Structures are given as structure tokens and as C-alpha cells.
């Protein structure tokens, strides 16, 4: 009985102290502003994903008549791949806009999954920048061997394409690699913060 009273007293003392702390109140205007920023950011990510697909479609449409069978097939494969990737990325990012009212245990699991998805997206983007170099090489090699485009034309266009890639790929690779490392650190930090003593051992 005494122990129970003691526990209630402890709770009362701590609660009373807790309620004495200074508090701040946030205005509705700033909450709405924050919401607009979050929506804007998510839409921007979606637009970036979409730009890749639109670029491929545009290039495909403009050059369609000038392309041989191999070049058309290769571009169709890459466009399809870009489309699937954009849809998959949007699917992975879906959690960011859904505010969670789950029980905390489930929320934490979702949060971990989201961080793992972010790591996956960043690593995929990082590796994609290197795969694009290979895709361009295959594209022009195929044009030369299968579509009978002259070596001079293939070499000229190939060098220009690879030069553009060489300018942007390192920057993109570094950016994506940093993001992958940042999300990995966030996941590790979350797991560290969640380390608890087992309640069963405290009984």
C-alpha cells in the first residue's frame, strides 16, 4: 500500500514539475505555410522523376524518323525503364505525405522502412549514373553494327553524348552517394535512439 502511494506521489511531483515548463504556441498560419512547403517539395521530387521520362519520350518522338530499328528498340527499352523507375520512386516516397496516426511501434517500423527506401533510391540513382554511360555506349555501338550508321556520325554523336555525361555524372554520383550515406546515418541514429533495456529483465 505504501509503495503504491509512493508511486502516485512520485507521479504527482514529476507531473507538477512537467506542467511548470515554459511552452510556445504555434500559429495556424505557420502550420499552413509549412504544409505548402512539404507539398511543394514532394511535387518537385515527382517532377524530377517525371522529367527523365518526358526527356526520353521527347527525344524518341523528335528523332523517331531518323532512327534505325536497333536505336528505336533501345530507346523504347530505356524509356520504359525510366517510366517504371519514376512510378517505383513515387511508390517508395508515398509514406512521406501520409501523416501517421499508427501506434508508435508500427510507426517506427514504417519509419525504418521509409529510411531504407530512401537509401535504396539514393543508391539506385548513384549507380544509374554509371549505367547510363554503358547504355550510351551500347546505343551508339548498336547503331553502328545493326543500323548501319557510319562510323563518323556515330563517333561524333557518341563523343558529344559521353562528354555531356562526363560533365554531369561525377556531380550526380557524389550527390546521390551523400544522400545514401545521410539516410544510412539517420537509420543508424534512429536504431541507436530506440535501444531500450528489456522490460522483462527489470521485473
Amino acid at each position, binding site marked *: 500500500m505504501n509503495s503504491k502511494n509512493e508511486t502516485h506521489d512520485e507521479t504527482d511531483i514529476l507531473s507538477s*514539475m512537467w506542467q511548470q*515548463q515554459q511552452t510556445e504556441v504555434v500559429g495556424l498560419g505557420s*502550420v*499552413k505555410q*509549412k*504544409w505548402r512547403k512539404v507539398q511543394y517539395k514532394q511535387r518537385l521530387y515527382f517532377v524530377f522523376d517525371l522529367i527523365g521520362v518526358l526527356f526520353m519520350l521527347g527525344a524518341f518522338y523528335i528523332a523517331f524518323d531518323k532512327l534505325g530499328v536497333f536505336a528505336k528498340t533501345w530507346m523504347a527499352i530505356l524509356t520504359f525503364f525510366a517510366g517504371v523507375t519514376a512510378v517505383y520512386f513515387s511508390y517508395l516516397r508515398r509514406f512521406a505525405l501520409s*501523416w*501517421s*496516426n499508427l501506434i508508435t511501434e508500427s510507426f517506427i517500423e514504417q519509419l525504418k522502412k521509409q529510411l531504407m527506401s530512401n537509401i535504396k533510391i539514393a543508391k539506385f540513382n548513384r549507380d544509374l549514373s554509371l549505367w547510363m554511360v554503358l547504355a550510351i555506349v551500347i546505343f551508339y555501338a548498336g547503331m553502328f553494327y545493326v543500323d548501319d550508321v557510319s562510323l563518323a556520325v556515330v563517333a561524333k554523336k557518341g563523343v558529344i553524348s559521353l562528354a555531356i555525361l562526363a560533365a554531369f555524372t561525377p556531380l550526380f554520383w557524389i550527390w546521390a552517394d551523400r544522400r545514401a550515406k545521410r539516410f544510412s546515418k539517420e537509420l543508424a541514429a534512429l536504431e541507436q535512439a530506440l535501444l*531500450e533495456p528489456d522490460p522483462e529483465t527489470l521485473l
Partner: protein
Amino acid sequence: MSQDFNSILSEYGALLSRVATSYEANHHLRQELLQEISLAVWQSLRTFKGDSSLKTYILRVAHNRAISHVAYHIKTPKSASYCEMTQASPSPTASSETTMAQQQQVTTLLNEVRKLPIQTRQIVTLSMEGLSYQDIAEVCGIKVTNVGVILNRSKKVLLEAIKHEQ
């Protein structure tokens, strides 16, 4: 919706602020967290079905948002010294020694709460907000007996720290 949320902010604004304080010592980051928590609560109100009290629901959403913040801000300094406004400053009327001592106790309590592991921190703060063991267990997704064990142990730790400071 805005009207409803305005009244919710008036009623539970201080509670949301206390949740933010239990996860973030830095004043600027705390303000940012408070905005994020308020936004999460605002968006989550659409899906409130009345299965629990509104206060319990708001606290659940607020804590979930704050947990995301803990991971996201790993790259920023955790120390309270990062910003000169990290701790509540004494009010102009707080001149007596008793009041100063009380404020010191509150500061110590806040610092000690922030040192607790996330789940323990959540359980302790929910308890100090007046939630029952059953409600805390439902919010956290753990057994009621575990709530009791963690709470009893951590309250002793907090009280010891406060006594030690005196």
C-alpha cells in the same frame, strides 16, 4: 477544419510544445519540430475516428512525428549550448529563491527526460501528461505491465537526478 484546428491549437498547443521540448533542446530546432508536430496533428485530424480520446490521439501523432525528427537531425549538434535560447529563461517575476529553485528543477527534469531512450521518454512524458497505463500501452503498442515497469524505474531515475541537483 481551420476553425476546428484553431481551437485545438488553443487547447492543446502547450501540450504539443511540451512534446517538442522532450525531444529537442535547441530552441530553433524545437520551433521547427513544433511546427512539424502541429502540421502532423492537423493532417491526422481527418482520420480521427474517436476510438480514443482526442488528447491521446494528438499525443500519439505528436510523438510519432518527434521520433522522425530524432533521426533526421542526427547531423545537427545535440547539445543545448548550440543556441543561447535552449532553456526557458526565468520570468520577470521569478526573483525569489524558491521560484529559482523550482525553475532549476524543471530544467533538470527536461534535461534528464531528453537523455532517456525513446520509448522510455515517450512513456514517462505521456504519464506526466496524465494518460493512464492502458492509454500509454495503446499509444506505444506495448503491454500494460511493461508500461508500469518502465515507468516506475524511470521515475526513480528522474527523481534521483533532481535530488542530486539540489
